[in-house]
């Protein structure tokens, strides 16, 4: 008797995309989007984002949120690389020699917070929500500035100062958001212990984790010797382990990696660690980061964001420019470059979306209108951010691109 036909060796249909196929697909689609964008002299990032939006929930809906969960690991690694690199760009020596740079970082953070808060308050957004929204707005996207600077091969005072300011405002934004979240917990009747301990755990834990990574880098680096290839692998390894540990321990990837980078740059008296280039080699991951970011944006919010969203953008913008300009002039930048420096802080951080969703996820009862406004502002800034940064660097004459693609 003949055996029944058995097709068990064939895969089940429809095919569920696994992580590898997904990574490859994101990479290739991002590549195409980036190349198209470069043809019309737009930043490649804009192309990655556009492809993401096209494939994501705004467009064809191919990249569903269940699918995107699988891409999370790549996104986390690329954020880790970017934040580490950002930390390495903040030079304490420079802040000592040019105090105005430090003060401009603090003043633009404080001023953009105040202006956004006051604006939202007058538009009848509840106080605490207005404060959280304003705090999220303090931070500028490290990824956008760093990748555009890299793509344009930009060097100069606007580029270098913008990166330092982003490092400062990322740290400040993180601290303020964490504290405000604690207050929010309190409003929602969490126990006092939770309210006090949670932010403390986040801050101290992330600091400690970053410090441990730095110490490991110094010891291992000294043992490996000054070999660029080895130290590169070591740093990537440590970055990934730190990202993983931060997630495991429910700490924050952002702060831990920033601290790691900061210490590597500023606390290496024996000059054990080589300044190995990480940014250019991370390009693969960064493409995926931005395609995923684009896919997660829900452009429908643009329609409901309305006046509050626009007011938010305007107030944040004013805060950044007014906060930076006087100090930049004191540092000897021309009026034009000072304004461009303020302008360069426009892009909002990719993790702003995540932060917003986290807050509203915890307390679904929160004002939905404010949520929509905030998300729409993030989307607008996400889209125009790369264009604005490219414009500022070109305008400041700091790009080194020889011929456009």
């Amino acid at each position, binding site marked *: 008797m003949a055996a029944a036909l058995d097709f068990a060796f064939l895969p089940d249909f429809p095919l569920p995309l696994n992580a590898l196929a997904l990574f490859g697909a994101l990479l290739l689609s991002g590549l195409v989007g980036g190349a198209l964008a470069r043809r019309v002299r737009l930043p490649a990032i804009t192309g990655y984002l556009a492809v993401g939006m096209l494939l994501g929930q705004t467009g064809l809906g191919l990249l569903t949120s269940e699918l995107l969960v699988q891409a999370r690991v790549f996104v986390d690694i690329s954020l880790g690389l970017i934040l580490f690199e950002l930390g*390495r760009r903040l030079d304490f020596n420079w802040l000592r*020699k040019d105090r105005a740079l430090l003060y401009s970082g603090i003043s633009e953070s404080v001023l953009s917070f105040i202006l956004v808060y006051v604006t939202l308050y007058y538009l009848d957004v509840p106080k605490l929500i207005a404060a959280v929204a304003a705090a999220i707005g303090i931070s500028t996207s490290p990824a956008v500035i760093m990748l555009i600077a890299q793509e344009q091969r930009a*060097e100069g005072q606007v580029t270098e100062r913008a990166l330092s300011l982003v490092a400062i405002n990322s740290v400040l934004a993180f601290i303020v958001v964490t504290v405000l979240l604690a207050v929010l917990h309190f409003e929602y009747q969490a126990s006092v212990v939770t309210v006090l301990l949670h932010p403390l755990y986040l801050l101290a834990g992330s600091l400690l984790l970053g410090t441990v990574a730095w110490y490991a880098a110094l010891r291992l680096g000294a043992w490996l010797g*000054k070999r660029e290839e080895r130290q590169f692998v070591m740093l990537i390894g440590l970055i990934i382990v730190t990202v993983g540990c931060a997630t495991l321990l429910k700490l924050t990837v952002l702060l831990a990696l920033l601290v790691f980078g900061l210490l590597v740059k500023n606390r290496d008296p024996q000059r054990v660690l*080589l*300044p190995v280039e990480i940014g250019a080699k991370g390009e693969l991951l960064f493409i995926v980061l931005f395609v995923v970011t684009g896919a997660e944006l829900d452009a429908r919010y643009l329609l409901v964001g309305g006046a509050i969203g626009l007011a938010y953008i305007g107030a944040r913008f004013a805060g950044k420019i007014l906060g930076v300009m006087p100090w930049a002039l004191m*540092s*000897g930048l021309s009026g034009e470059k000072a304004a461009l420096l303020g302008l360069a802080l426009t892009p909002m951080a990719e993790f702003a979306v995540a932060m917003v969703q986290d807050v509203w996820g915890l307390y679904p009862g929160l004002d939905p209108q404010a949520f929509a406004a905030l998300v729409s502002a993030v989307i607008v800034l996400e889209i125009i951010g790369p264009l604005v940064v490219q414009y500022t660097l070109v305008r400041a004459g700091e790009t080194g691109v020889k011929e456009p693609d």
Partner: protein
Amino acid sequence: MEQLTFEPSQAFSIGVEIELQIVNTRDYNLTRGAPDLLARLERIKLPGAVKPEIAQSMIELNSGVNANYATLLGQLRGMRDAVVEQVERLNLAVCGGGTHPFQQWSDQRIYPAERFNYVSDLYGYLAKQFTVFGLHIHVGCASGDDAIYLTHALSRYIPHFIALSASSPFYQGVDTSFDSSRLNAVNAFPLSGCMPSVHTWAQFNEYFARMYSYKIVASTKDFYWDIRPKPEYGTVEIRVCDTPLNVEKASALAAYAQALAHRLMAERPALPPDSYALYNYNRFQACRFGMNGYILDPSTKTHVTMTSDIAATLEQLAPHADAVDARTALSQLSEDVATARNDTAWLRERYRETKSFTDVVHAQVGRWKQ
């Protein structure tokens, strides 16, 4: 075209132009810092002048005209301190050295100025490869004829200047085995080399007029010779030195040129008929081996070591050094000769110690500040 006029200057006065590297403080690679730095320097008063150079990662310090080593050194120290202070506020650094050890020439950008654009259009990639850093020494001359005589007479000592100043062993990420690899970048230019056989200012003018009429040159700036008369300043300009790692060495080399000029003008030795026949050989020895090279003496036609030749010259110069207050400077150079060490030796030691070109440049930055 009009005749070039030689504007006479105080005989044996000295001045220098120093080309400096602008590097970032991250990996100590060259960085396009000149526009931002020059904008800052415009606002403060300096004892000399700071100018842009062909690449945006270079600046040039120009001293004023000085009577002697001590005042030149004082002026250069003042300029160095002012520039270092401004540079640090921009989170940049400057340093000496004839080449950057690991920059890629293709990364360099030409400073946007008419002359630099012209040079870049004309010479193509040579212009960018010319991202090398030299010290130019000017010695004042009372007349154009004196300048022409000195230009020829000083050529005998060009290897000394190369060996004493050499500070460019590394180029594009490798040890070139040369003490001064920088001069190899100069050799590729069609108008490099030496002044032709003209012996008076009038003959020089004729030569220039001829080259001008062929449209080969537009001004004396287009002659990239090792030594050339500089009629606008009324000087002879020695252009073979690498930028030393500190202003002390730069000033001492200027004082050496000054004392040599004093002696040559006082004694007016006749120029050996075929002196230029050996010129390139001696120059190569100095570039390749520095203080450990050999010189074929044009008058005796014997091989002598570089160090003994410089030591003998320093001895002859003693009375002239007194006349121009260059004694301290020359005794400093004697020490270098006694130990056969130049800046290239120092740079190679730093590399052996740190195994990293980034750390070498970091050390150069520290040495410049001292």
